[in-house]
């Protein structure tokens, strides 16, 4: 891999939103994993594979809302970014089938007011 120098790092592009759309992000710090994020992440990966979904499935650290773990952030093009909290395997599948396939937000699991770093 090419090493950075002062000037190449300076010219490296930065963007505020990484990645922009069509992703599912699961909080995978100790608090999330303790609440079952491992299982949720596995479920999402497997089921999205089965459904041949064009979604990036990503991991992230603790966003701070430990009371709502496991926390899943869903960004689908044309829809607002939604955080689902206390997600189980079953809810994860609902998210794929309803939110991503049918573009309808799943009832009763949305946590609004979760504060991501990008909003500050």
């Amino acid at each position, binding site marked *: 891999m090419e090493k950075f120098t002062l000037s190449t790092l300076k010219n490296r592009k930065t*963007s505020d939103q990484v990645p922009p759309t069509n992703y599912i992000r699961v909080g995978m710090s100790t608090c999330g994993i303790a609440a079952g994020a491992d299982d949720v992440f596995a479920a999402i990966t497997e089921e999205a594979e089965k459904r041949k979904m064009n979604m990036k499935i990503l991991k992230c650290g603790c966003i*701070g809302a430990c009371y*709502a773990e496991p926390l899943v952030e869903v960004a689908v093009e044309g829809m607002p970014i939604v955080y689902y909290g206390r997600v189980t395997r079953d809810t994860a599948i609902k998210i794929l089938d309803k939110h991503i396939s049918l573009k309808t937000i799943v009832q009763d699991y949305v946590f609004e007011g979760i504060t*991501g*770093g990008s909003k*500050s």
Partner: protein
Amino acid sequence: MSSIEYILIRDTSPAQSDGTKDFFTLILNKIVELGLQEKIHVVRAADIGLYNKGNVVKVLPQGVVYTHIVSEDISDLINAVKNNTVFEKKLYKDLSYKQHRLVLRNCGVINPESIDEYLDRGGYQGLRNALEKKPAEVIAEIKKSGLRGRGGAGFPTWLKWELTANQKSDQRFVICNGDEGDPGAYMDRSVMEGDPHSVVEGLSIAAYAIGATKGFFYIRAEYPLAVQRIKNAVQQATALGLHGNNILGTDFSLELEVRLGAGAFVCGEETSLIASIEGKRGTPRPRPPFPSVKGLWGKPTSINNVETLANVPVILHEGGGKFAKIGTEKGAGTKVFALTGKICNTGLIEVPMGITLREIVEDVGGGVLGGKKIKAIQTGGPSGGVIPAQFHDTPVDYENLGKLGSIMGSGGMIVLDEDDCVVDVAKFYMQFCVDESCGKCAPCRIGTYQMKDILAKITDGKAELEDLTRLQEIGTAMQKASLCGLGQTAANPVLSTIKYFLDEYKEHIVNKKCPARKCKNLMTYRIIPEKCKRCRVCVKNCPENAISGDRETGYIIDQQKCIKCGICFNVCKFDAVLGA
């Protein structure tokens, strides 16, 4: 295709029964009546970020919030949503964003195992800026920012660096203190797990500023994921020339190594931590000489907390002046707190300095669990104190909390409600200090043990009023005579609770009663025959079979067998069990 509006709804009134579903039906009926169900989607939220504001509605993507919505408002509300206008009458205007994310800027946003995502968000630009300056200029930038140590004591970071840099020596060291041990605190863990590169970058900048070529991460072994992610981050940085020899093509080289702590609380104290890295027993030594003069292997060493270091890249990237504008004059920047205890939203928060405790609890934390009354807030863990409710409008910074007999500490914040007994809390922390005292100096080794014994006497109902004076005397002696911070501060929880909750101590000692019903040995449970409906539910639930009798004569609790678990009190539907 016309875009869809989403209405998030939530009943936020503190009542036991949740009215969200009824409210949902009302709104949905109206939408169907107007034939708008294809254009407006109604979503029941599990949490909407506001509390005690009646029926709350948030419209997305418009972003406006309405509170206290009643059925008469629904038509106007839906019209406003349809026409993309604002329903002024119920508009919630106070959407000031209480949290301010600097340290946690990337936590929960990027993949902690990917250096690319960190670089995408401006990562390592702070290090680049630093390397383009002279080391003294880097320290000047930190001085301008007003950054103070986030580990608890609040020592100015620039001064620590300058003192280390000014020592004549062939070798200097930097250490990142990741030995987080306060009960209920996990700020550093989250930063190391969620954004490890920011800590690596911060430590690299520190090393450059003081002229160190070797640095250590001292992380407790109970944080395996943090250790793994820091190691991974160092590896990735090395591959891209951001760590190792000739960083970014300059003359600056640095080698970072991870050392594991065995989970001794005292090793968070800097001289013990140094001893532990040197391979010796983790005990403190008298200061001065401070580590900045004589530290690791006798060389000048700068030890900074994880959170302090995570601030450094931001300061170097965006400038110290911008950082200094956040927070208060004497406490620039933000502070991360681990909010736990009897609070709705337990979790990690980052707020600007100068915010009040009440704002933290009510607005950020969502209020006290179960709508109960707040009694106090414990800050700073075993070294901190308990701040009673009447002082909760105090702005949070190092000086103010110090005046109240507590400390900022590393950032643990435990909310206590009316059901918590302050004597019990003080006893818990004292037991913690007894377990964690290294035993090197007598005031701490003997003092903590004696204080714990006296507190146990109080909670057992065997104490006398003189014991309070004894607690204060021992506590003051420990503050003055202990070798390190552990012993000097161990008495704080006890002294601050005696200061603010003297009545509660006296109630335990004189009347042998625990107002919060926490101290089991002061409790007796009794069945009131007149109220008892002979349902036997207490009999069935008693784990010790201590309740005897029959439906004819009624039931009594055998005080000899009773273990005071309180189950009978909790299961009785007729308030026939008296606990006092």
